[in-house]
């Protein structure tokens, strides 16, 4: 703005400012070029390729032929493992997402109280979230060992005969969900951050109106943290439908081979079945059809979540 009088009187300055602006643009594109290149080669082209091959019989080695909707039809009408995998994954999502939400939120509320040693408690509850990878899966195989594992030993103190966990097709998935729940500290921290951002004045006003702790929680705390809850549920569902490693590694708990979904396909999650189709059976076209169906399912659920959110998610600054 200040340059304007100068620019109108002095032609060379105007030219120079133009070239500066061009240089600015070029700099901008240079700075984002790593992402642009990565997006093109690691996302965009693979995405198009994946969609195209889902309509072919592509198997990496032999010639690729267009087969129309055949892969999709086979999936729905012929392949029993597809339905099994879809069921297992849905089961996992339906149970683990609410349990994670309740667990993380309750922990966050507890950790938001003014009690001595809170820093240590927060560290303790967050630690399992940091511990991940194969070592943790191995640990849980040991923890959920039917005879000598920690959980069943602890249950026996109360006279309860614990289940066979990964040796029983009905208890294998709950075992994975329990293992998942151990790392609930990640979500806990998000809720804690959001709990601490609730203005103190709201509580004071409610207290003056005679609202008890429960009323304050239901009418102030809960509505104020619904945006984070919404975010956690959306990402939880998206992530839940991509469960893979847990199934791949835990298949070995009862002596099955990695990725077999043992016992009796009870751990054959959708992504695991996709993996097997692509990298064991080399039916890449079919696996990509499965991938796109999953993409569609996740997109519909996310859309539905956003639609429903209008009824329960509360934004302080009005609707966004």
């Amino acid at each position: 703005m200040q340059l304007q009088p100068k620019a109108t009187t002095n032609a060379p300055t105007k030219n120079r400012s133009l070239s500066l602006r061009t240089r600015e643009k070029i700099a901008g594109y240079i700075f984002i070029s790593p992402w642009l290149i990565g997006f093109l080669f690691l996302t965009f082209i693979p995405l198009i390729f994946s969609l195209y091959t889902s309509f072919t019989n592509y198997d990496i080695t032999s010639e690729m032929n267009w087969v129309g909707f055949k892969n999709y039809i086979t999936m729905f009408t012929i392949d029993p493992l597809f339905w099994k995998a879809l069921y297992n994954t849905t089961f996992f999502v339906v149970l683990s997402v609410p349990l994670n939400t309740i667990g993380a939120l309750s922990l966050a509320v507890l950790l938001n109280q003014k009690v001595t040693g809170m820093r240590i408690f927060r560290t303790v509850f967050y630690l399992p979230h940091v511990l991940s990878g194969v070592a943790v899966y191995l640990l849980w195989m040991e923890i959920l060992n039917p005879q000598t594992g920690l959980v069943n030993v602890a249950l026996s103190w109360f006279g309860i005969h614990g289940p066979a966990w990964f040796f029983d097709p009905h208890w294998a998935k709950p075992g994975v969900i329990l293992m998942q729940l151990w790392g609930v500290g990640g979500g806990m921290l998000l809720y804690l951050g959001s709990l601490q951002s609730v203005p103190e004045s709201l509580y004071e006003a409610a207290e003056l109106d005679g609202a008890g702790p429960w009323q304050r929680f239901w009418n102030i705390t809960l509505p104020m943290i619904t945006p984070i809850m919404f975010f956690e549920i959306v990402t939880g569902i998206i992530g839940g439908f991509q469960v893979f490693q847990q199934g791949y590694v835990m298949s070995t708990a009862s002596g099955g081979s990695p990725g077999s979904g043992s016992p009796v396909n009870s751990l054959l999650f959708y992504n695991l079945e996709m993996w097997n189709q692509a990298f064991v059976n080399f039916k890449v076209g079919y696996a990509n059809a499965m991938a796109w169906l999953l993409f569609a399912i996740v997109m519909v659920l996310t859309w539905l979540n956003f639609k429903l959110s209008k009824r329960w998610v509360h934004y302080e600054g009005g609707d966004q």
Partner: protein
Amino acid sequence: MAVNKVPGRYYVGRKMRSRIYKTIIFVVLIVLSVTILAPAWWMVATSFKSMKEIMTTSNTFWPKHFHWHNYVAAWEAAPFTRYTLNTAFITLFVVLGTVISNSFVAYGFAKIKFPGRDWLFSILLGTMMIPGFVTMIPTYVIFTKIHWVGTYLPLIVPSFFSGAFFTFMLRQFYRQIPNELLEAAKIDGAGHLYIWWKIMLPLVRPALATVAIFTFNGAWNDFLGPLLYVSNESQYTLQIGLTTFQGQVATQWNYLMAASVVALLPVVLLFFLFQRYFIEGSNIMGGIKG
């Protein structure tokens, strides 16, 4: 406050109630902490036990004898030193690539005006919604065609092209830095590269540390990447090594746990050293995501 007008007895009662309440919460937290830490302790305890002790049903939280030798035996039963070096090598480059590329790209999105910027940024955000598996198979095919499968390149190179999540996060940090600082540097004749490297990066150092730490954890624990692209046993990472080790010593839970403890050690050390960044880092992301 209204409370002060209430007779003393009521006030004391209130204080008492609050003390009882706090004690209850404290006890609940202690019990929960023990429950949450028990599996981790179980792992350490098992790693010191003899196989005989593990197989007996009367399992204990404290090993009868500490078999330190389990660690040596486990480490020698498979080439774990090799696996650790491989993992460290990959992790180092992935962390380097992620921090450099994400901070570079985020600067472009945050501080430079160019046509189509906002449009491109919404595409970047949109990519967060794509399930990994949709692009995984084609990416594998691409890496096969350029003969990268069997090398570490597919694990390392993509991290140099920045991703949606950390770019988004760092952009938020850059935007908090006043533009006057940038303008002043420009008047002094500094280019964007200089401003980014010399002025911006030192200012967002805590955010960079957060990115580095989270990336370290992700890369150290990565399982799917090496499972997909590594074929030669001498190239195995710790994660892959542990799964194959499990097959070899299926009943030797003490060895398995010993190897697992060692594999987790760097992550635990990092957590306690940089605890502040972990706790704050998650909050930062929460703030942005919400």
